[in-house]
């Protein structure tokens, strides 16, 4: 009986313990990423100087503060946003295959970002003054928001989400957003085309403090909102009607989940382009390890997503140094096989 008393708690308890281990690993990977790069400056000693309060050389300061630090922080923000956006979207759609990158939400957010870049000159002055540097992430957020709502309306009937409709509608949505983006690219002038090309590389290469400031607040809001969604998404896993029967305000949970997905995906896409597979592989791995309970899952997703993206960025920087690979290629090469393997293993486990 003592065993039966303790065993049923184990998966959630394990997930709670995992918070600590993931946080520790995240700190180590972050420190490691600060020491790796194309420059010859060895940052181990620089970190030591920092710790002991000694002054840095000018070179060390520039590499550490203006190049690697914003890149690390942007990686942490984008990685956690992608993983949490994926986990929330999967909970909302009651479907472990839902991923903002696969079902057109990233494309919608991209359309928003491109619109902001190309049509920024046409925006009223007051708008650009209020939005400032955040115009592109905010536009990406609205693009992601509109596509998430549209997708949910199309694929959900009487509280049940059809997987097939969702995936097909996602393909159509992605194609439409891509076509509209193409029209805008055609309309753009040379300077804008250059902005778009750099933006579309799907890389953390352009990281700067300005980008951190632009995306940081939106991603932080999305992560805070996600932490309140655990119970609601657990209830939604049983279907909308049952979620209401057990006392959840279903409309509020859904509305907040859609906003969270749009904010996380939009901000991440706006600063780093489309980076795939983090949003689908991270929640999957965590569900395998510690179960699908969203309360610990969303926190672990933020930690593991940040960790994996920073690690992928390190790989992207060193594998063909001094050049670097777009990080989207690294996550796809590592993520796609993992995703297929999970799919084959899990086939019977989920109601598809």
């Amino acid at each position, binding site marked *: 009986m003592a065993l039966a008393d303790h065993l049923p708690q184990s998966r959630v308890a394990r997930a709670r313990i995992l918070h600590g281990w993931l946080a520790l690993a995240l700190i180590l990977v972050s420190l490691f990423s600060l020491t790796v790069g194309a420059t010859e400056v060895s940052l181990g000693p620089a970190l030591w100087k920092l710790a002991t309060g000694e002054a840095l050389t000018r070179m060390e300061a520039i590499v550490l503060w203006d190049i690697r630090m914003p890149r690390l922080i942007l990686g942490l923000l984008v990685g956690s946003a992608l993983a949490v956006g994926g986990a929330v979207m999967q909970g909302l759609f009651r479907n472990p295959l839902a991923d903002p990158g696969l079902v057109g939400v990233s494309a919608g957010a991209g359309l928003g970002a491109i619109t902001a870049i190309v049509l920024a000159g046409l925006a009223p002055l007051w708008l650009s003054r209020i939005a400032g540097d955040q115009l592109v992430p905010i536009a990406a957020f609205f693009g992601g928001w509109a596509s998430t709502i549209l997708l949910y309306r199309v694929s959900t009937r009487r509280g049940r989400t059809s997987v097939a409709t969702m995936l097909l509608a996602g393909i159509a949505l992605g194609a439409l957003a891509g076509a509209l983006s193409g029209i805008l690219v055609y309309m753009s002038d040379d300077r804008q085309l250059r902005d778009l090309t750099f933006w579309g590389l799907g890389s953390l290469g352009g990281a700067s403090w300005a980008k951190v400031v632009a995306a940081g607040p939106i991603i932080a809001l999305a992560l805070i909102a996600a932490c309140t969604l655990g119970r609601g998404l657990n209830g939604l896993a049983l279907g909308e*009607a049952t979620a209401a029967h057990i006392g959840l*305000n279903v409309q509020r949970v859904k509305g907040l989940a859609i906003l969270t997905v749009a904010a996380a995906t939009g901000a991440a896409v706006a600063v780093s382009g489309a980076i795939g597979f983090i949003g689908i592989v991270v929640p999957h791995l965590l569900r395998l390890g510690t179960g699908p309970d969203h309360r610990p899952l969303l926190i672990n997703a933020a930690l593991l997503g940040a960790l994996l993206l920073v690690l992928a960025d390190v790989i992207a920087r060193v594998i063909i140094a001094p050049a670097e690979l777009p990080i989207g290629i690294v996550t796809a090469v590592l993520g796609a096989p993992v995703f297929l393997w999970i799919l084959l293993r899990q086939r019977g486990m989920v*109601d598809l």
Partner: protein
Amino acid sequence: MTLAVRNITVRYGPKTVIEDLNADAVPGALTAIVGPNGSGKSTLIKAICGDLPYTGQITLNGTDVATAQPWELAGLRGVLPQASTLAFPFHAIEVVRIGLTSGPDAEHHHRAEAALARVGLAGYANRYYQELSGGEQQRVQLARVLAQVWSPGTADGPRWLMLDEPVSSLDIAHQLQVMTIARNFARAGGGVIAVMHDLNLTALFADHVLVMAEGQLLASGHPAEVMTDDVLSRAYGCTLRVNTAPTDTIPYILPHCAAPHAAE
């Protein structure tokens, strides 16, 4: 402290599924809703659960179902749906715990184990829900509902079980088990509303029967009063004869004569 349904009309688009229906149910009794397919019995229980828009008024313990907050209703009644899907690989015990999300009994973790034991699935806590048989999944869902409204009677009034065809995917032994759980809930002071397909089980377990046909209430009363040749034949559109044994040699099995085995 009853369920009162007053002048309910439910429409799906242009089609009227329930028209101007009045019904009552009291706690301490198992009230069964029977009727042919398409008679509106599932629609009625969905309206009572607050899932559908309707005109008219439904009150549960005096609370207006249409305007109450979800968490208020969750404290008053649990709902077992006809069919359930589950998106993620939850363990059986985790599904039951989701039933403890809100309401006065949230955070009673040992209740989830007790609820599984009550539906005869004590050893199934850490089994994957998707690996269970259809009947076992239905009993896990029942355990989830029981965990939500654990005490049939509280100081604030009775609580209610709303069961939409609770035994349709179960074998006869488990049908009897589930109906006994429902009846015990009513005996302990709670209210039970069950949509039923099986007329024999209805006769055996219901204290009050609502017979529906074509979106209206055809008869209402004790099984002995309403389960007559006339009422049932009119409701189901074929000639039915109550308490008539077949004259040929084909065997028939009635739940009335079943007795539980010693094991399980």
